[in-house]
């Protein structure tokens, strides 16, 4: 028996009045209780606890000895934190734009009913099946000047070829970006492809009748119709950006120097290696705040706007 028929069945037995809305879809509500509790205790509870303790001078163990904004003052005057934020911004913006463009382009190309589509899809999606650690190590080797790409090209005869992003503090974040995009664009391609397949054939026919070119059809008609798919992709990419950690650890471990540090790594290092929980909590609170700053305007536009309209 499907859940939707339950209310009418309940009404047959109920002696009087409307059924209590609280007991509507009771089984579904019961089933989601564990997740609701988890969300409340682990996410909301844990987050609150972290924020509260970020105002203390906890070292190895959490201690409720409040010191006001000291941890935040120190955080924002730490060069490594500033480098981390800058790196995350560069990585985030580039990865957001490039992953979407590459994902959509690949999907559109695959959508042209080419031969061996399955094979290509598998090849493009395959990197996503690898963990960030494996991705990071693989690209560390590929980008290593002595063994990787640079060496291969030089052996082909182009002696002066230089491509060594990981050992230059100015370019190292782009070396990481390459690995991140390689890993992530396959999944976005698949989601986009599913979205493209969901577009009605008649739209294409109508566009053809009106004499609109293929590229223009994609950009002007299909893309706006894929709004939900694009939003799903954006959320997936954004969450991947904020939690960027293992890729950096595997590929450069923050080096050379501190040139490829990221906020999540700062948090982990200060909480555990430096045994300074307060500083780590302050850093993770700042990460949360930055997520909220991005999320609130978006949520307002997405949900608030609809209600008005």
């Amino acid at each position, binding site marked *: 028996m499907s859940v939707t028929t339950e209310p009418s069945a309940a009404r047959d037995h109920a002696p009087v009045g409307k059924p209590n809305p609280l007991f509507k879809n009771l089984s579904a509500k019961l089933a989601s209780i564990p997740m609701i509790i988890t969300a409340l205790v682990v996410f909301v509870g844990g987050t609150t606890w972290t924020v509260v303790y970020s105002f203390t001078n906890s070292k*190895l163990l959490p201690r409720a000895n409040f010191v006001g904004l000291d941890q935040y003052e120190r955080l924002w005057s730490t*060069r490594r934190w500033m480098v981390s934020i800058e790196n995350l911004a560069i990585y985030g913006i580039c990865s957001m734009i490039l992953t979407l463009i590459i994902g959509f382009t690949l999907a559109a190309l695959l959508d042209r009913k080419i031969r061996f589509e399955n094979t290509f899809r598998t090849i493009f999606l395959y990197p996503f099946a690898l963990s960030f650690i494996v991705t990071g190590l693989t690209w560390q080797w590929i980008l290593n000047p002595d063994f990787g790409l640079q060496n291969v090209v030089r052996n082909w005869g182009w002696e002066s070829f230089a491509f060594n992003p990981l050992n230059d503090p100015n370019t190292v974040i782009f070396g990481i970006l390459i690995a991140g995009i390689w890993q992530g664009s396959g999944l976005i391609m698949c989601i986009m492809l599913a979205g493209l397949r969901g577009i009605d054939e008649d739209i294409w026919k109508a566009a053809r009748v009106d004499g609109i070119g293929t590229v223009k059809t994609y950009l002007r008609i299909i893309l706006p119709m894929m709004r939900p798919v694009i939003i799903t992709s954006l959320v997936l990419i954004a969450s991947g950006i904020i939690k960027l950690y293992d890729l950096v650890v595997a590929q450069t471990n923050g080096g050379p120097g501190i040139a490829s540090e990221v906020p999540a790594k700062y948090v982990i290092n200060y909480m555990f290696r430096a045994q300074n929980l307060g500083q780590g909590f302050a850093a993770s609170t700042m990460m949360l705040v930055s997520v909220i700053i991005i999320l609130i305007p978006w949520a307002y536009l997405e949900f608030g706007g609809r209600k008005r309209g």
Partner: protein
Amino acid sequence: MYLKRIMAALAVSAALPMAASHATDLEVTHWWTSGGEAAAVSELAKAFDASGDKWVDGAIAGGGGTARPVIISRILGGDPMGATQLNHGRQAEELIEAGLLTDLTEIAEKEGWKDIVNPPSLLESCTLDGRIYCAPINIHSWQWIWLSNAAYEQAGVPVPTNWEEFVAAAPNLKEAGIVPLAMGKQGWQQNGAFGVMVVAIAGVDAWKKVNVEKDAETARGPEYAKVFEAAVKAREFAADSNVQDWNQATNMVITGKAGGQIMGDWAQGEFQVAGKVAGKDYTCLPGLGNNQILDTAGDAFYFPKVDNAETTEAQMRLASLLISKEVQVAFNLKKGSLPIRGDVDLSAANDCMQKGLKILADGGIMPSGDQNLTPDTTTQIEDLMAEFWSGDMSAADAQSRYAEIIESAE
């Protein structure tokens, strides 16, 4: 028939360990994973197994920076190991305050550790409020530079005997295609080497002022300025050294690809494993040849509190075993470190260890960074050093930022 016999044999072999009077499995975590270190730790395991208990090895790869969080989170998370290596000093301070480590005072008093352990500062680092919480196992000093005789021969210059000669010989090495200074690209190595240069160039008094008294004025002063300028030079020497781990850098010296490496005496274990002879294949200069003084950092074993009385007893047995003469000799010869007691016979020790022993006997000792700075301060300095050594930060900038960290240190 056969099956029965096998079963019987199995039963006997299973019963055998039980038959020993006190057989307890003790998991011991440590981060000794390089060749020389692994050889040394197997000496400990052998001795502990021979005494009837069982050493369950819990090596954590990746060095102290990786291993310490794992160890501490296991202790905090209620899954304590039987015993664990840590560098004594301030790393375990809060664990002791939280009552998570076993008090060893009783056995220490019974065996008279106070009279045995030399220098006494080692045991003092294990002591909090008059109670002893760790068993020191060795003395490691940072103040060494390891030089490859072959590299200098190839470059046609005599092996340096102090830092100034090392600096002077560096261009010759470069010409011969040899990296003058091998340096792993990790903050703790760069910070360690820097600390060694402070002691050798600015002197131990300036070092103490900054690290013990946290005097930022000295850190801003002219003595430290000299050190930062020397570090800029060292950074140039190490520009072509593209390795990460310390033992890879040591390997560059062993194979003659690099002239020298500033590294603690644990590097000696690597030379030993490679079959190199001190004085012939490689040269070691304590205090960079400039002053005869060693810090007395080291490793110690801590014993997390457990509910099981049998395990606690086994912990005590291990603690007393670690201090014993035989284990001290066997372990430290393999590890290349110095023993924590002066009354053992180390005539089997090589040239470099003898040098170290002599300095120790003469009292040329100083406290170590770990014993004075919190991990928090050390991490900040390591971050600074990582940035300094990998980029083109000027000596003056680095010095002022270093002084700021010292100013805010606890």
